[in-house]
């Protein structure tokens, strides 16, 4: 299976994007990153900590992955736009994972602010990958605004609840003309496989790996499940039926008559 994923003209062999949040150390992150096979990793921006030892950029540079800065923690389009501009300056990339959050308990996107920020950033030449709800209409609006991909959630960030509305994800996939990256909600390998079987082009995964008991083993499990899901999609699943359909032919079945006498 050597088909590649293309986002904004850039080709990726891996369909797993690794979120770096939640890893206990840079060493564990480096280990998970290696076995995940991911070619793109998110990073965040926060106030410079003068006491911080070692930069996450050392880990990411060593592995050669593309950095995808995010706007995590922004609640307004204005904050997200300024954060994206800072990220462009800090990481010398136009790519931005756009997050504009509307509520601090659910961390669900604020649709109105998200779309406004997306329009502004596209105007400024950013490659915008918006974290969005599983609303097909909003996904379409973001695509129309010029986003390079859409990244609908399966369920809230860090919830591990998997894909709560597979029908909406399937509709988004069906109608999108840009790549669809399932972002948020994956709890374990099967969730990632389901996303790929639904036709998502890639899966972005952070907590499911970083907060697993063994993050490196989970990184491998999710890498394999993304591949398995993609392969299953291309193989074409059988339709769901209410009743059984025998897999062994009826024809040629021997007949034994009535028993000669009851014991």
């Amino acid at each position, binding site marked *: 299976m050597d088909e590649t994923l293309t986002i904004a003209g850039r080709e990726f062999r891996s369909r797993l994007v690794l*979120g*770096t*949040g*939640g*890893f206990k150390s840079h060493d564990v*992150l480096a280990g998970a990153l290696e076995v995940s096979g991911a070619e793109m990793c*998110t*990073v*965040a*921006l*926060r*106030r*410079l*900590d*003068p006491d*911080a030892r070692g*930069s*996450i*950029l050392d880990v990411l540079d060593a592995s050669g992955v593309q950095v*995808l*800065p*995010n706007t*995590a923690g922004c609640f307004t389009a*204005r904050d997200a736009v*300024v954060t994206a*501009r*800072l*990220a*462009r*300056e*800090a*990481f010398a990339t136009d790519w931005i*994972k756009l*997050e504009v959050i509307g509520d601090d308990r659910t961390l669900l996107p604020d649709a109105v602010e998200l779309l406004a920020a997306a329009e502004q950033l596209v105007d400024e030449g950013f490659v915008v990958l918006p974290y969005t709800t599983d609303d097909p209409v909003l996904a379409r609006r973001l695509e129309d605004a010029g986003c390079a991909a859409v990244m609908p959630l399966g369920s809230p960030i860090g919830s591990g609840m998997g894909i709560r509305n597979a029908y909406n994800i399937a509709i988004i996939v069906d109608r999108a003309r840009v790549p669809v990256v399932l972002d948020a909600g994956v709890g374990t390998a099967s969730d990632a496989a389901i996303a790929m079987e639904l036709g998502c082009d890639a899966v972005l995964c*952070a907590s499911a790996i970083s907060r697993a008991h063994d993050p490196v083993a989970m990184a491998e499990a999710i890498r394999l499940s993304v591949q398995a899901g993609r392969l299953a999609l291309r193989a074409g699943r059988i339709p769901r039926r209410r009743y059984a359909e025998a897999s062994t032919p009826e024809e040629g079945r021997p007949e034994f008559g009535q028993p000669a006498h009851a014991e």
Partner: protein
Amino acid sequence: MTVIVNGERRELPSGATVAHVVALLSGDGDARGVAVAVEGEVVPRTTWSSTPLSEGARVEVVAAIQGG
């Protein structure tokens, strides 16, 4: 003069530039992956040393961390 750096008041010599503030925070680090905004406007790295700060300026100095 007093400027607000990452939410904290700092006393700096008058004429101090953005480059001074970055050096103050990052010490001997190379400030890789660092970006600066003054009053919500990004100051490109190439102009840090030629951008003086004014009294009361709000400066945000950010760097890469794990996240997302």
